């Protein structure tokens, strides 16, 4: 008797739960699933709006073309360069800053709150901010460097392909570091302090404590940070657009794979090839995510219940 009543209640619970979640799930699946399918569909056609309305089905030809396209190779190289700095450098710096902020000092809460400033600044505004700072003719960086005598002539930060890429990395770093720091701070606060006390009694110095206690205990947060930041870095768009006036330049110096997909789709109006590039970007994001999970995930379970 009682089991059937419990069963009945469970079934009603389930129906209620499904009823609550169905609208949201349906919205997401329909509104993202349909365009996704359509993008896959387009990537199978030679479909350039500049070349008239005919668009023959070409199967995987777009994908084989992009594998051998030197412009794609160059864009991939830039994407890797950008991501190596923003992901590896970003997470490493975030760990250091978090250690710096994880001690008791007056104003600690204030610093933590102010970390949200770069995080909340819209990407477009971020681009404008750094444009004001690094502009070749009137930027404050040149003014300061000239004033201190470090340079004699103005550096054209945003006219040289290599320099522009580095300014881009610098600008993105400002915006992404705070979130990574907050992640790392939360991770640090989850480590019981008595482990450090015990290590100190055993005579471990600061570096040993950092390597043997802090890093192993931060495996989860660090892995999460690496995954999330990789996703964002591979998809970077807004800052490039604003910093380079929508060109991905100069001399395509900041055209990452994602930006190339944009240029091909919206400047060349090559929908088919653009779609295949965009999907390749997505595959790249997923592959990198899986790579991090494979590299760092295996031994993650043994401390899963520590928090």
């Amino acid at each position, binding site marked *: 008797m009682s089991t059937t009543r419990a069963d009945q209640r469970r079934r009603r619970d*389930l129906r209620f739960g499904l009823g609550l979640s169905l609208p949201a799930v349906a919205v997401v699946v329909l509104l993202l699933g349909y365009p996704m399918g359509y993008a896959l569909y387009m990537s199978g056609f030679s479909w350039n709006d500049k070349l008239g309305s005919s668009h023959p089905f070409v199967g995987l030809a777009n994908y084989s073309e992009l594998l051998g396209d030197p412009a794609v190779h160059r864009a991939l190289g830039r994407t890797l360069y950008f991501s190596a700095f923003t992901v590896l450098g970003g997470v490493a710096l975030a760990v250091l800053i978090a250690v710096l902020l994880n001690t008791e000092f007056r104003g600690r809460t204030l610093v933590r709150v102010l970390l949200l400033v770069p995080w909340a600044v819209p990407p477009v505004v971020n681009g*404008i901010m750094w444009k004001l700072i690094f502009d070749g003719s009137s930027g404050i960086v040149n003014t300061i460097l000239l004033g201190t005598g470090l340079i004699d002539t103005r550096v054209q930060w945003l006219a040289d392909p290599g320099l522009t890429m580095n300014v881009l990395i610098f600008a993105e770093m400002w915006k992404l570091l705070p979130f990574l720091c907050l992640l790392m701070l939360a991770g640090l606060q989850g480590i019981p302090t008595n482990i450090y006390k015990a290590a100190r009694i055993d005579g471990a110095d600061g570096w040993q404590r950092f390597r043997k206690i802090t890093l192993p205990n931060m495996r989860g947060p660090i892995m999460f940070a690496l995954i999330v930041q990789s996703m964002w870095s591979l998809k970077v768009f807004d800052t490039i657009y604003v910093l380079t006036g929508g060109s991905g330049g100069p001399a395509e110096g900041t055209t990452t794979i994602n930006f190339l997909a944009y240029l091909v789709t919206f400047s060349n109006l090559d929908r088919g090839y653009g779609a295949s590039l965009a999907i390749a970007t997505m595959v790249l994001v997923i592959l990198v995510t899986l790579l991090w999970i494979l590299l760092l995930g295996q031994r993650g379970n043994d401390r899963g219940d520590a928090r």
Partner: protein
Amino acid sequence: MSTLTERAASTTQPRAATPRDAGRRRRRRLGTIGHRALVALLLVYLLAPFVWMLVYSLYPSSALQQASPDLNPGLLTGASYARLLSDSSFLVPMVNSAIVGISTTIVCMVLGSACAYAFARYRFRGRNALLLGMLTVQAIPVIVLAVPLFILLRAFGLYDRLPGLIVTYTAFILPLVIWMLVGFFDEIPPSLERAARIDGCNRLQIMIKIAFPLAAPGLAATAILAFITSWSDFFLAKVLTSTAATTLPVKTAAFQGLFAMDYTSAATAGVITAVPVLLLALLAQKWIIRGLVEGAVKG
């Protein structure tokens, strides 16, 4: 970190001062000074770029673009703000952004809070797969969906119209909202809801009268995050609107062309675009940090 070590060592072992102690104290003080200096440097790094943009928006550009920028307070002027805020080509995008942001937030919160509550309370098969799916949306570059969405919205007559943007943003932001809210609902102990059930509340009443008020700070923080995300978007708004429904970030980005740039206007527009979301983020900082970070660290 070394400062903590030294401090702990000296407080746990009170004894007569020796020359070694003095050396240790000096080292400690040096360590502390170094630490404070680094923190101060960090603060400057976090704030200076934004402050410089603020300065740019408040001074005539001729005063700033010389060998030594002239920051004489007498030169301060709000002219640029007055100009932009009385220009309808700037005000329309601003109002658009507000309408789209608020509407998207409301739709996301209504759909998302119900869905997240169901995910957190009723463990059905496929729950984890769905949650993971919500996170996977983060892997999709918006560019993949831009052209299909453009075609779709045009087919429904929603291109360059606010409802089109609201629908699109809802699809993108809803997964984030659900993911964050599940974390907040998971933290509410189910015992209170069990008690309410014994008192004769039905499932809907329990959700609205017990669970939602308990999760109120989390709901508020999530709503703010949804608004910030919607308000800040540039790419989708650029592709899916042209003039009538254009938003503030698109308008702001337009101040900076490939060759020429109106610096003062760009800085002013940047400040106006950033200030609402900055205020919201600082207002809800405690709960935003918790919502963003704790779920991630746990997960």
